[in-house]
């Protein structure tokens, strides 16, 4: 099955895990969702040197204790959490991918107004890219658009406010100088 996009709750889970691990002072090299086609699901990969020094079992136990202490254990799908050593080839690839930051512009176009609600198409065009097809993310209404840009892409609220005003006036808006890692752009369906 094709990779599906990460949803808002997945991003929130990642934030809860990172916050809990930070509070418990767990050494972490990287945390990110990774699509596993064989299982048809995303797994939350936690890359930590503890896998080598303490072993995977102790690492899981300490991470789950950190989640419990932060009162988020119940809200994290721990079955999908996977620890990896920084020396693991898959973890190395993940860390390398996270370092690849693309800067570009987000273009938003208002296509039509079914049922009175605006239908938006959002595309991300990196300033430097290898070319190829650029997928569009479709959103319905100002609420979905605001949520996507602010919560998932990380655009400041005042920039989103200005974009929504532009869209009301001219049916299109561009947000310049947006930085996204290649992985996050793919997870948000903003890159092929």
């Amino acid at each position, binding site marked *: 099955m094709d990779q599906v996009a990460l949803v808002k709750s997945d991003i929130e889970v990642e934030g809860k895990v990172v916050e809990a691990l930070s509070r418990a002072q767990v050494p972490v090299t990287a945390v990110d969702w990774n699509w596993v086609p064989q*299982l048809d699901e995303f797994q939350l990969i936690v890359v930590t040197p503890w896998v080598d020094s303490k072993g995977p079992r102790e690492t899981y136990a300490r991470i789950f204790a950190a*989640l419990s202490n932060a009162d988020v254990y119940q809200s994290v799908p721990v*079955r999908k959490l*996977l620890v990896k050593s920084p020396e693991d080839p898959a973890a190395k690839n993940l860390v390398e991918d996270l370092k690849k930051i693309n800067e570009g512009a987000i273009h938003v176009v208002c296509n039509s107004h079914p049922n009175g609600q605006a239908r938006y198409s959002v595309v991300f065009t990196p300033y430097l890219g290898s070319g190829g097809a650029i997928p569009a993310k479709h959103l319905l209404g100002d609420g979905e658009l605001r949520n996507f840009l602010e919560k998932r892409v990380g655009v400041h609220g005042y920039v989103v406010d200005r974009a929504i005003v532009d869209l009301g006036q001219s049916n299109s808006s561009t947000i310049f100088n947006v930085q996204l890692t290649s992985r996050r752009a793919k997870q948000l369906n903003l890159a092929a």
Partner: protein
Amino acid sequence: MYSHDLSVLLKVAGLEAQLEREIASNPSFAANWNTVKVWTAESRYQASGLNGKDMYNAVTGPNGVLPWIKSRW
């Protein structure tokens, strides 16, 4: 067709819901399950060092995966 994938086998055995409940209520079991679930037929040769010891304890130790499965035979 044979499978060694523990997640698949648990599903076939109808134990998935029980596994979810155990993981949600017992972080020690969850740590053992997550350690064991990555086992593959190929990884059985990595029996030495920390990984081998961890796998053994996660399977047979307190809150281990094998006692949990055995109690449902």
